[in-house]
């Protein structure tokens, strides 16, 4: 289902109720699937759509959105906020895969968990998220930020594998642990991991220990092991990994600047 919020703001209630949506491959009217009402539910962001219930099978909520706000109490389906240009989406619950895929601007905040491909490019395409912010308070699965070019993704919980795969720019921060293979094939951009990583890809090289790192506008306190990679791509991406939460990575310290021999 594609619904475009800025279209909503110009429609009357009956026009909204009669909007055409697809249920599978059949055309239905919005009123056949949802209860809709209007009211003075505005917010600082302006025109707002409030959604309540199980929307886990409703895809492309907020697709291409450019202004205004969507607040969802419940579960959002796949492709939430895909190709978003502006505005704000908040989900008090979980969201499916492809949250904020190919985003250009705006903000998405999910209080629950998300699926795979958060902020990622379309399958096969190399043109990923360009701008905007995705904040996930829960956990994410695999390939978060795949082919990212710009913008910011923050996952406060844990992530699966291949976070920041093929990254060309932008910043990803992970509050919890990862399942490894972070930054695979990245060429630029920044990944910051506060929790535990099981191992690093062999094509990442330790550069320094940094006391803190900038994530968006914030300064996040370390200390961090800073790695560059992915060397298999001649990459200059930066991977920051918490020193204190990764004692098993201490062996990398011997590859830092040579110890002065007395």
């Amino acid at each position, binding site marked *: 289902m594609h619904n475009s919020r800025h279209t909503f703001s110009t429609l009357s209630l009956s026009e909204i109720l009669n909007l055409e949506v697809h249920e599978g491959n059949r055309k239905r009217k919005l009123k056949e699937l949802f209860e809709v009402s209007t009211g003075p539910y505005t917010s600082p962001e302006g025109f707002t759509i409030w959604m309540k219930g199980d929307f886990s099978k409703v895809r492309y909520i907020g697709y291409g959105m450019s202004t205004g706000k969507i607040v969802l109490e419940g579960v959002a389906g796949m492709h939430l906020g895909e190709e978003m240009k502006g505005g704000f989406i908040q989900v008090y619950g979980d969201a499916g895969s492809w949250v904020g895929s190919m985003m250009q601007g705006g903000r998405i905040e999910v209080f629950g968990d998300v699926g795979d491909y958060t902020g990622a490019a379309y*399958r096969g395409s190399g043109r990923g998220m360009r701008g905007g912010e995705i904040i996930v308070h829960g956990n994410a699965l695999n390939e978060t930020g795949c082919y990212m070019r710009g913008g910011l993704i923050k996952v406060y919980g844990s992530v699966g594998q291949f976070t920041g795969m093929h990254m060309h720019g932008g910043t990803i921060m992970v509050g919890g642990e990862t399942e490894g293979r972070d930054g695979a094939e990245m060429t630029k951009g920044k990944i910051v991991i506060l929790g535990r990583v099981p191992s690093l890809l062999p094509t990442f090289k330790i550069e320094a220990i940094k006391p803190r790192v900038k994530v968006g506008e914030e300064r996040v306190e370390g200390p961090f092991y800073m790695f560059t990679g992915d060397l298999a791509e001649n990459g200059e991406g930066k991977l920051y990994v918490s020193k204190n939460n990764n004692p098993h990575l201490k062996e990398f310290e011997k590859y830092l600047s040579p110890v002065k021999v007395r």
Partner: protein
Amino acid sequence: MALLIRNGYVYDPMNGIDGEKMDILVEGGKIVDKLKSAEYEVIDASGMIVMPGGVDIHSHIAGSEVNAGRLLRPEDHAKDVELKTEITRSGVGYSVPSTFTTGYRYAKMGYTTVMNPSMPPLEAKHTHEELCDTPIIDKATYPLLGDWWFVLEYLRDGKIEECALHVAWMLYATKGYAIKIVNPGGLEAWGFGRNVRDIDDPVPYFNVTPREIIRGLCKVNKLLHLPHTIHVHTNNLGKPGNYETTLQTMKCVEDLSSGDKPCIHITHCQFSAFKGVDWREFYSGAEDIAKYVNFHKHVTMDMGQVIFTDTTTMTADGPFQYILHELTGNKWVNHDVETETSSGIVPFRYRRRSYVHSIQWCIGLELALLIRNPWRIFLTTDHPNAGPFTSYPQVIGWLISRKAREETLSKLNKRARETALLPSIDREYSLYEVAIATRAGQARALGLKDKGHLGVGGDADIAIYDVDPRKIGPSTQYDEYVKAFSKAAYTIKEGEIVVRNGEVVKVLDGKTYWVKVSSNSEYEVSEDMKRRFTEYWTVQFDNYPVSEAYLKRSKPVQVESEV
């Protein structure tokens, strides 16, 4: 179904008709001079152009390589979706469309015959399955034989006649139409991670040179009286300075031609007309190539015109495709087809701001405009390598209008604009010449007697375009022509109206052409060959040949060979 196409401006170069206002009569799927039937449909083609249906000598539309391209590029599908209609099936893909979409889109442009130029013999069945699922258009496919083990052995041993009998059998077994040669020797060398450096560089293990392969197969082609010539993708394709290899390739069969008949076709010549030493010292070699072609009668070629878009390269030239992957860093499919050939697929975007791509764009057009005889150079984009076939109308625009070229030039890389030859070329193709470049010339080069013309007895494959050549000047109002050629007012296939006003109104299955050689000697597949199949191929010999029943509509072209 009988048709009377009335009052159109007819362009039929094979019969010398240049924009004459005349009627065309169609009955029983053929062009006739008198209608027997009392009932017939009248098409009022007043103020419109009537041409034979388009013929495309080289377009990658079917087979395992094309399909691997489809699998590689879901993003190419997502951006171009065709919904199902009551008559047509759904489909996807911009640079590598699905089979049904391919057939419909060609028909919408008024094309009725398309040749799939590259088929590993092992994958013939797959290729024919896809061709059979490509609606409306007639089609054929060329088996890759330039690196085929048996051919290499016969030629190494100087056994031309045995080679000819073998090739005749291969055409029969693969239901192929012509001998395709890609980077001769290079594809076999790729199995060893190598390439060949020029036409005299011997192939590892077999110790034949590309020159011997090209000459040998050229002789075979002549002995078999095949309708088309050898169809050659040169060595060193895509390499700066390769125009010299192309000249050598054309020269190496000069002595094998008879009279005015061509004996070699250089395909997508743009990619083989690079002058210079590297990507900075890079220039067009089109002038040198054109000069040669203008003074020799044994060569035909097709353009391989670059379009500035995101497309997909796919060729049997494994080593070249590897270089492209290294150059672009793009995803890459690499394939060594058992004992037969190689292939590679890499997405590629041609950019106006790139000096090299801008020169490449100039090269294709320079070839078309500097080669004086329009029967020798044909319009293609080597779909999808230099651009999708849906761009053909755009290329027509550039050919007929200097203004169109200038408009595109003004947006190109500055250094290219200032140094290239193209901006100083005044020539503009007439509609007669366009008909040759997109239909008549291609059909003649292919030896398809019933195609590419509107003479009595020809197939009733006709395209009608809604643009009035008496009122709308091609030179200044080229965009009207581009629009008209994109959306045929009528496309007629075998006498049936399949497209009206750019929309498919009827779907039918086209025919698959292939060559059936009658030889004087019986060709017996030797026990040795069968044994080698068991040892080296993954397919048992008995399962290898494509039976005629496999084709939806088989159209064998009978030829009498000299052996």
